Structures are given as C-alpha cells and as structure tokens.
C-alpha cells in the first residue's frame, strides 16, 4: 500500500483566450518531498504553481491536498487552504510601502492580531535565522540588495510555518554564490519545518541541490518526471537538451510548417 501523496494533480487544464497553456498536468508530490518543475519559458510552469494555491483557477482536472479536492470548494475554502501554503515570487513581491518586519510578519499580524512588539521579535528571529542582521527589519525593501530581498521573501513565506512551500525561481537574478546560499537556506528551512515543496527553476545547479524529484513541463503536459539522480539518464531528448543547456535539439527546432511560412 502506497502512502497518500501530499499534493496530487490530475489532468489539470488551463486556457487563456486561444492559448491552451496546460493540456493535462499529472503530478504527485509525497509529504516532505521537494519537487522542482523545469521547462522552457512559457511552457506553463508558473501557471501550474499558481493553480496549486488558487491564484489561477484551472478549467478542468483535479487538485488534491492530503487527498482532499481543493477545486470547486469556493473562495472561503481556498482562503482557509492558503494558510497551509507559503510562497515566494520570482522578484520577491515584497510590499514596498511596509518595512521588513511588517513584510515578514504580514500574515501573522493579519490573522493572529499579534502585537507590534511580538511581531518584531518574530521578524528578528526569522531574518537572523536566514543570515540577515537584526537591524534590517526596520529597512524598506527598496533599500535591500536582490539577495537580501530573496531572503526576506523566504522569511515571509516560512514565518507562519506552512506545510507546503511554493518557490517561483528562488535564485533567478542572483550570482552563483548568493544563489547557492539561498538554496542552502531553503533546504535548511524546509527540513526544519518538515514542509513539502514545489519549486520552479531554470538554474540546473540549484535544481540538483534542492530537488528530490524533477518534472519537466513541455507543451502543457509533463514530459518526464523522476528522481533528480535519474535526470541525466532520462533518455528523453528534450530533458537532455534542457538539462545540459544545449542550443541544438528538439526544444529549439523550428516546426516544418513555420519554416515553409518563412519562405
């Protein structure tokens, strides 16, 4: 008997206008597992992630968390469910008008009506765990470097100790060293929380560090999904090309009909 997956997507579809982005996504993530979704730009990775926490409503299919269907439950059910999620965005999405301590404890203050002093204490503890100086909590996002903003975004995502963490390109725009530091912080934080994570990344070094399992999305479906250790021997040409960053291959081939059109 296999354990029930923490997250399960079956046949998830989504169309924007004439463009069908997701044509039937099937994925399973076990509790405590770290899944990284890879794929070329515009293939539907971000849409898949946003479907998971209700920022985008799929047109069809099923999404289950702990075996419970989350689609069709209405806004109230989705809001309740979101408390179990933490998420970081590609460019941080920190609130410009709030100081760091209010950013980090935003959900705690809104939901639990924490006092200012208690919130500041939590903010200091969370940011210092992530290697930032305590005085940072009184600064504003615009005053921080890209790497520091990523750490604050991570602090905001984990401050409420969520069960599921979603990371949208956590190392994009960072130098390799800072990227490596962010990966280590993610791994440590996730281990401490025992959280299940779904990450989108283009950074293959980062993928190898943080992933237990890798799924490649291509043309709106999961082209390949397996253990990160098997990624190099998947036998799928698209996966091979993407993982090794090759300019030539099936992902960059111009379709025959498009070539005719050019003539």
């Amino acid at each position, binding site marked *: 008997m296999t354990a029930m997956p923490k997250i399960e997507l079956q046949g998830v579809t989504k169309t924007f206008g004439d463009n069908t982005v997701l044509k039937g996504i099937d994925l399973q993530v076990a509790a405590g597992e770290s899944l990284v979704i890879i794929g070329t730009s515009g293939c539907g990775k971000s849409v898949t992630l*946003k479907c998971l*926490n*209700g*920022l985008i409503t799929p047109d069809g299919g099923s999404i289950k968390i702990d075996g419970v269907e989350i689609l069709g439950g209405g806004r109230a059910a989705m*809001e309740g469910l*979101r*408390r179990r*999620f*933490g*998420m970081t*965005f*590609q*460019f941080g*999405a*920190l*609130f*410009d*008008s709030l100081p760091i301590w209010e950013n980090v404890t*935003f*959900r705690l203050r*809104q*939901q639990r009506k924490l006092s200012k002093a208690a919130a500041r204490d939590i903010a200091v503890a969370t940011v210092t765990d992530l290697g930032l100086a305590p005085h940072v909590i009184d600064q504003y996002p615009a005053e921080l470097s890209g790497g520091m903003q990523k750490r604050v975004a991570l602090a*905001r995502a984990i401050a409420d100790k969520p069960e599921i963490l979603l990371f949208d390109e956590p190392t994009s725009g960072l130098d390799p060293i800072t990227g490596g530091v962010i990966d280590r912080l993610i791994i440590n934080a996730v281990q401490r929380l025992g959280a299940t994570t779904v990450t989108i990344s283009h950074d293959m070094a980062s993928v190898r560090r943080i992933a237990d399992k890798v799924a490649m999305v291509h043309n709106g479906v999961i082209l390949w999904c397996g253990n990160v250790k098997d990624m190099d021997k998947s036998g799928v040409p698209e996966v091979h090309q993407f993982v090794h960053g090759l300019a030539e291959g099936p992902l960059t081939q111009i379709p025959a009909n498009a070539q005719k059109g050019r003539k």
Partner: protein
Amino acid sequence: MLSFIQNIGRTALAFLSALGRLTLFSVIAVRWIFTPPYYWQQLLRQIIDIGYYSLPVVGLTTLFSGMVLALQSYTGFARFSAEDTVATVVVLSVTRELGPVLAGLMVAGRIGASMAAEIGTMRVTDQIDALDTLSTRPMQYLVAPRLLAGTLCLPFLVLIGDVIGVFGGYIVGVFRLGFNPAIYLSRTLQYLEVSDVTLGLIKAAVFGFLIALMGCYHGYHSGRGAEGVGRATTNAVVSASILILISNYLVTALFFGV
C-alpha cells in the same frame, strides 16, 4: 459596409463589457467596505494622503478661482450696475460649483494617478498575488480603504476650499475693487443657504468615490510592464475627470431648485 457594422458592434460590446467589469468591481469593493476585518491603518494612511497632502493644491486652486471670479463678475455686473451682487455670486459659485469641481479635478490628477500607479505597480510586481497568498483579500486591503477615504475626505477638502475661495473673492473685493469689508461679508452671508453648501459637499463625496474608484480600477487591471502602469495612470485621471464632469451635471440636475 459589413465591416463598418462589425466595428460598431465590437465597440459597443467592448464598452458594455468594460461597464460590466467596472460595475462588478464597484459592487465588490463597496461590499468589502462594510465587511470585517477593517484595515484602520490603511484607511488612516489614505485619509492623510488624500485629505492632508491635497490641502495645498486645493487651497491654491480655490483661492485663485475665488479671486478671478470676483474680478470677472465685477466686470460683467458693472455693465448693468449690479456690482453689489459680486459677493453673492462668488459665494454661490464657489460653494455650489467651483469648489467641488475644481477640488475634484485637482485631486483626480494627484490622487487618482497615485492610486493607479501604486496599485498598478503592485499588480505587475506580483504584490497583489502575494497578498492573496498571505490570506489577505486585495480588494478589502487595497481598494476598500481607498474608496472610503476618498468619499470621506473630499467633502472636508471642499469645505476648506469653499472658505478659501470665498476669502479669495473677499481679498479682491475689498483690496482691489474697493468694497466695504463689512458690506462684502454681509452680502456673502445674506443669500447663502445651508443647501448651497450641502449640495457642494454631496457632489464632493460623489467625486471622491469616483476618483478613488477609477484609480483603483485602472491600477488593479493594469497591463504588464512600465507601459501598462503608465497607461493605467493616464486612464485613471482621464476617466475620473470625465466622470466628475458628468456626475456634476447629474447631481446638480437631481437637486435642481433646492
């Protein structure tokens, strides 16, 4: 011919669709104003931004409008020896019409643009999605306090603008046109009725709501990138200004004779 009709149909459908979206947005936003939790800090911030920081621009606008009005009405009324009515014309024009409309247009330029730019930037940098993921409804957190603050602050701004505008007329009347100060003041108050002031304040509340609504709506539905935010800002100011002029007539017509 067929394509001409198609274009008319397409434009009409697009207009009705936009109107429907705006109506739905307004209804949802107004509902959140009255639904807990209430974001007092956000409301206070908006009240300070709209009510306090708009005072100089509204004060200057109404001051010089009152001064110009006194000069112009004197020029006109002197032609049929009705100079005595200058004070009355100034106070009625400022309280019923110029105060609310000019304050509305100035605040539309200042606040409508800033709301659209701020919310639009939040949209394109995923901050609105982040609010959702942090279990906070963006409409309730961002839009409802702005609508309430706009509706509450504009009447106060207009009331102060009315006083400053009438004072502008007084300065010109007394120091430039040679009116006796006591007589000018008495003429100012003689024909002024409470309904003149309240009509102006009702208009101001409507304008305040429309300015905030346009700022929030266009910001919330901003397109991607700097160009999208820029377009949202322009649309917010233009649509708020047009709606102020249209609703000014509608409110005046509604209370005509009062």
